[in-house]
């Protein structure tokens, strides 16, 4: 018999070969020192691998998992319940107003329609005003950038290159500090 290949050794160790082949290998390794050593080494690794120490699960792990699952499920339910309550409340208010007003159903709908149109009207006014504010802000930004541009232009002629680099570096540093400071304030709610 030829010497064993590695995959044959592994299959032999896991008794994944037919009985006849297992016997042939047994006979071969009894006489071939090289193959016997190769089998012994791989057997030792497999045995050690099968008995590696296990990570221990904390005693309250199951409870933690279950609590997390049902807390998450409950929070979803809470969100749906909130939405349903809000909707029911609106319907209830509408019905109460309808009963109080002595109007017939079509009259109530007309009134509701008027309220909705008034709301849409106010929303449009708000929208137009918002656009106006945004365009004003944009104008201001344009003027500000024009000012910065002329200042920088005059600065380049007035100061040397080294000073310009220092000033630009200092400006970037201050801007970044301000930006991250403000961001931290917003994210963590830190008080100054």
């Amino acid at each position, binding site marked *: 018999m030829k010497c064993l*290949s*590695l995959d044959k050794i*592994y299959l032999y160790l896991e008794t994944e070969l037919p009985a006849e082949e297992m016997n042939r290998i047994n006979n071969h390794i009894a006489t071939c020192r090289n193959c016997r050593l*190769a089998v012994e*080494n791989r057997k030792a690794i497999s045995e050690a691998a099968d*008995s*590696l120490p296990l990570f221990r699960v904390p005693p309250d*792990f199951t409870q933690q998992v279950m609590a997390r699952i049902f807390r*998450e499920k409950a929070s979803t339910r809470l969100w749906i319940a909130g939405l349903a309550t809000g909707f029911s409340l609106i319907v209830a208010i509408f019905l109460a107003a309808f009963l109080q007003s002595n109007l017939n159903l079509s009259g109530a709908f007309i009134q509701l329609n008027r309220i909705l149109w008034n709301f849409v009207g106010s929303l449009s006014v708000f929208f137009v005003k918002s656009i106006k504010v945004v365009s004003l802000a944009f104008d201001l930004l344009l003027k500000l950038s024009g000012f910065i541009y002329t200042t920088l232009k005059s600065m380049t002629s007035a100061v040397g290159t080294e000073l310009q680099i220092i000033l630009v570096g200092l400006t970037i540093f201050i801007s970044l500090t301000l930006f991250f400071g403000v961001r931290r304030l917003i994210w963590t709610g830190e008080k100054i």
Partner: protein
Amino acid sequence: MNEDKDLVEKTLKGDKEAFEMIVRKYQSPLLNYIGRMVRERELALDLTQDVFIKTFASLHTYQPQHKFSTWLFKIASNYTIDYWRKKRIEAYSIDVGKNDESCRPNMQIPANEPSLVQKYELREIREKIEKALEKIPPSMRELFVWRHINEFSYDEIAEIKDLPVGTVKNKIFQAKEMIRKYLEVGP
């Protein structure tokens, strides 16, 4: 294994205790798989919890013709891969070279192989394997862990990873050869 399917069915009908039994049954195998993959106990505990939550959320997609344990470990494997991708740790898709012959180990016994049994005690070999596991590619480590720690059959591993059984065997043999080489050169 029908026990698992019954537990899934009961959970889907709203039986909380049925899922608790699933958690109790699989928490140790999952922790030991994830723990050996991320090599950090606290992180492994968090990820194991996440896997159970993900499993609970997608329980309605489980198809009873598959083994529950392989389905669960498929979720765990994908979750671990996603975690590593997010952390930008070496991506380890095993799909590359599914039938690639180059992934086959050198099939011949190396010449002048020293005896590990004479060199180390069993305890030392275990310690060396733990260290060697950190060195081998995660795609191989994963298969090795499933085979030797979770005691899955090659067929089960092939089902989890959607790979041919032959490829799984070769990868695991290759992993063992890497570990053996590590032990061989070690002090």
